[in-house]
């Protein structure tokens, strides 16, 4: 067992700008931005494993823990961002994307140096494939299965990429924006019998030929 270091006291935490500089020195092509006091580094899928290995092994960064791995779906098309213009007076806000993107976010933390930052990795939402981070951080196992289950992102190199929270024969990836919320229609009427929904028939809406 290696010597245990006191967090934050073995070396001072790096400021966000120092981390940004360190990452950009090593990987000059990566975009970064700092917002709300947090650093986000935009990574491309082919550079992911190299970047993660660098984050873990570098002497300055020493991010030994992958804290979180999650996905956000930004679908393609025109979207009106609803800011209630009639009541707030705020102008209508439109966003348009040609290509739908599933953004996978990795949050890495250094316990010894007490700093953390985020890596953002976009992948197309039509056939999302990414290399698996389990070769670098073993704690990516369940979170990657969760992203696969809910977004459909396939991670190459994952030891056991199966559904984790939904039933094994479920069709569809629920956290995508094109997947409906489901549930029953609850009109507030008396004495109305609401038939039980068969959620598995969401196949009609969602499509797909099977698990």
């Amino acid at each position, binding site marked *: 067992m290696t010597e245990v270091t006191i967090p934050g006291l073995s070396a001072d935490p790096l400021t966000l700008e120092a981390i940004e500089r360190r990452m950009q020195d090593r990987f000059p092509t990566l975009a970064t931005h700092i917002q709300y006091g947090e650093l986000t580094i935009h990574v491309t899928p082919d550079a992911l494993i190299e970047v993660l290995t660098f984050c873990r092994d570098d002497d300055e960064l020493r991010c030994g823990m992958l804290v979180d791995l999650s996905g956000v779906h930004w679908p393609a098309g025109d979207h009106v961002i609803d800011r209630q213009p009639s009541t707030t007076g705020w102008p209508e806000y439109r966003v348009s994307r040609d290509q739908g993107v599933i953004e996978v976010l990795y949050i890495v933390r250094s316990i010894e140096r007490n700093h953390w930052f985020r890596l953002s990795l976009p992948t197309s939402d039509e056939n999302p494939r990414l290399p698996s981070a389990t070769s670098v951080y073993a704690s990516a196992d369940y979170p990657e299965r969760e992203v696969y289950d809910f977004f459909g992102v396939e991670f190459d190199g994952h030891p056991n990429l199966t559904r984790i929270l*939904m039933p094994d024969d479920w069709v569809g990836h629920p956290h995508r924006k094109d997947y*409906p*919320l*489901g*549930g029953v229609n609850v009109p507030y009427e008396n004495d109305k019998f609401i038939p039980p929904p068969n959620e598995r028939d969401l196949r009609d809406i969602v499509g797909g030929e099977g698990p």
Partner: protein
Amino acid sequence: MGLEDKLPSGILLTNLEKLVNYSRSASLWPATFGLACCAIEMMATGGPRHDMARFGMEVFRASPRQADLMIVAGRVSNKMAPILRRIYDQMSDPKWVLSMGVCATSGGMFNNYALVQGVDHIVPVDMYVPGCPPRPEMLMDGILRLHAKIRNETFAEQGAK
């Protein structure tokens, strides 16, 4: 189950029915089916302050064969539904189901793809206790009403279930 079908209903058996129903209601053993937050309140109902043992119910039987009452405490997801049905089928007659909390009764605040909107789509329910989660006193009220319902049941009704 088989015997009750063959017994004649009517005046002949009222005293026997009363005795049997009283003994059933006085020691109704719940099966452990605590799922989510309501399970914690169910455990609190078995705890020292709101004591279910006064009513003969503190033995939570892990084996469904030995249990009489299934308190479905918590939200039933689509993955859990077949297991819920299987445990219900494994319970031996006579058996009752109490649906605790709004998630078991009707899906609760989670009107979405993941939950069964009401456990009565899966098993026949005898008593619904609303609440999110219901206070232990509310659960006790539901249980006592269920006891009253059991005491008023005839053999024919129980056999028909």
